[in-house]
């Protein structure tokens, strides 16, 4: 006729209840962390995609630069174009300022990664150019 003390049963249930609340608190915290991590990953992914699309899209950069160089205003310009695996170099020993303005206007308005630039005024109408763009 040994019976359980109801206070012991009550205490056990209370401990179980407290334990379940603590566990719930832990799991909720974990959920917040996971949500935060997910949002961060998504934000990073979108940002990275757009930046890569601008600065790491060789095909796109090549196509748009070729389009610029084929412009009527630059058709007669004495431009030398060298392409490597990672860079494109556009240079000219002497370029009319009109052609230089046309070229630089388009390059600076585009999203190109210019890693080196040298423009030297030769006289009132001409300048030399060296421009290295990374793709």
């Amino acid at each position: 006729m040994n019976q359980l003390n109801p206070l012991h049963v009550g205490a056990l249930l209370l401990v179980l209840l407290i334990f379940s609340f603590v566990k719930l608190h832990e799991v909720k915290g974990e959920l917040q962390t996971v949500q935060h991590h997910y949002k961060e990953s998504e934000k990073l992914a979108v940002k990275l995609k757009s930046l890569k699309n601008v600065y790491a899209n060789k095909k796109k950069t090549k196509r748009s630069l070729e389009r610029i160089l084929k412009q009527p205003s630059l058709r007669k310009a004495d431009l030398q174009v060298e392409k490597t695996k990672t860079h494109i170099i556009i240079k000219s020993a002497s370029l009319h300022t009109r052609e230089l303005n046309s070229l630089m206007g388009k390059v600076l308005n585009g999203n190109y990664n210019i890693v080196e630039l040298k423009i030297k005024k030769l006289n009132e109408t001409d300048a030399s150019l060296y421009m290295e763009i990374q793709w």
Partner: protein
Amino acid sequence: MFTKFRRKTTTLFLDPYMEKREYPKDRKFHIILSPSLYWVKKVQLPVKYIREVKKLLPSLFEDILPQGHFSYSVYKEGESYYIFAYEDKKIFDLLSSVGIASTDILGVYFAQAELDMQEDVYQINQKQVLYKKDDILIVAPKVWFKEVKPLDLSQHSIVSSKISLQQYGHIVDKGSLYKLAALVVMLILVVGMEIFITKAKISEIEKLESGVFTRYKLLPTMMQNKAVLAKYTKIYQLQTKLRAYLELFLKMPLQSTQKITLVTYKNALLHVSISNVSQKDEKKLFEKFVAQKIAYKTKYTKDGVDVEIML
């Protein structure tokens, strides 16, 4: 080969005035309660089943019971119901005072149900006897009777059903305890469900995150991806600054004699040479650089000024 150990059993008449004595440790007890330990009524009720009577028991004793925590019991004999009220704690306290542990008790029975006494009068302690009047066993002073017999239970066999004593009934009301326990259990279940749902959500979000990595072709770790992002962010910032600073130079309020003669950019260093500029022109020419807090260095030569800006 194997001998089964069986503990000896004793049938004991439990009375508040019983003589105290030592019991062997290996003994188990059937306890027969003295009428001094319960209230009994023989009633006839217009109900068919004992379970219906059980609901009525507290109200049937309402007018005679003192203040306390009572348990109730009933059994049927013929057309009559014998109804009982007893205090669990009082019985346990008495058992404890005579040295019987609750673990050693095999069963507890009412003397009313257990002893078939007819006309006999039995002595239960030095001053009191037990006898039957109008089918009810009662305790009376010994002096009322001339002839009394000693109550010998050594050959007694248990005939009635045992009653269940609520060891802790006086601490918490059974009904309230069940309700409270049910409430707590419900709460635990609700919290458990919430934990389950939250874990499912976590798993779902982890899947979505894994999908982001696949969809955007990210590198395996966030550290690697952050490093790549930092690299491209730096490129973006440098290119934005280069264009903004070149625009500032091109919009400089230069005089007709002042010309930009050289522009170079490499390793984040922008160098611009302007001809025919003296130190006294600096404030006017670099007004916008100062306003935008752009750090620049100037070096004046006989041809003009060389300006350097670290992007």
